[in-house]
């Protein structure tokens, strides 16, 4: 059984991660640990009791975020899901974390190398599901002969473009507003015209 102290420790750790998530989602990844401590209502030193470095805090946060995405995508994915269902599931997951994800893709180039690796691995989960769906789809429909990485990168490129330039497309949630349009037309780009 966990001692009272362990429970308390885990709760504080979770509070710091939850708060860091919120602060980064609002301020971007240049936000400082001071800001996070203040928002979490803990002393600055408390953060470093739980996370030895800022980088470590960031990695833990991204890993937690990645495993959330992983879980959601997996739960949403069914054995016989269509391309459309999968793309909708991907967008739905991102909508839940839209502000955070938007900041993440805008700031990724300035993040430490290890954070970039976590980011790559978050995308690997998406590319795994997508490539499985595409393989299945090829049995049913005519999908153009395009290398898998171009299929994946085009999808990611499309939604990342809408996200990072959301001011062009929406005052609210750009993914919510453009979800159907993006999915429908992306699929059109992949499918061969039927005669």
């Amino acid at each position, binding site marked *: 059984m966990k001692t009272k102290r362990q429970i308390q420790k885990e709760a504080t750790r979770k509070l710091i991660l939850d708060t860091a998530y919120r602060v980064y989602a609002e301020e971007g990844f240049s936000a400082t640990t001071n800001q996070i401590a203040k928002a979490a209502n803990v002393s600055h030193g408390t953060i470093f009791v739980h996370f030895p470095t800022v980088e470590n805090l960031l990695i833990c946060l991204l*890993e937690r975020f990645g495993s959330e995405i992983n879980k959601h995508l997996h739960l949403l994915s069914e054995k016989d899901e269509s391309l459309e269902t999968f793309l909708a599931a991907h967008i739905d997951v991102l909508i839940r974390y839209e502000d955070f994800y938007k900041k993440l893709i805008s700031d990724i180039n300035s993040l430490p190398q290890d954070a970039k690796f976590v980011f790559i691995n978050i995308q690997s989960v998406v590319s795994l599901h997508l490539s499985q769906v595409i393989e299945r789809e090829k049995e049913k429909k005519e999908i153009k002969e395009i290398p898998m990485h171009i299929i994946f990168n085009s999808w990611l490129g499309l939604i990342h473009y809408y996200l990072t330039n959301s001011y062009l497309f929406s005052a609210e949630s750009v993914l919510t507003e453009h979800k159907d349009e993006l999915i429908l037309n992306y699929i059109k780009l992949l499918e061969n015209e039927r005669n």
Partner: protein
Amino acid sequence: MKTCIACGMPMKKESDFAMGDTSKEYCIYCAKEDGSMQSFEEKKQSLLNFTIKTQGLDKAIAEKAVENMMRQLPAWKGFF
């Protein structure tokens, strides 16, 4: 929910598990044909090929990303 010790994939349905056996700690993608778990080198190679094929990454980058991911997984703790 269990997650695969060798690749981190969540395992929910029977079909997610190696040989459909829910007592297994690794998933269908990490199993060899005879049902045993892939070796470190086999898994690394397959993750590497997969990452390059589906994301188009530079080989050196992909290699580091894969190692970084495997380092976190219980099955490969002894390899780093």
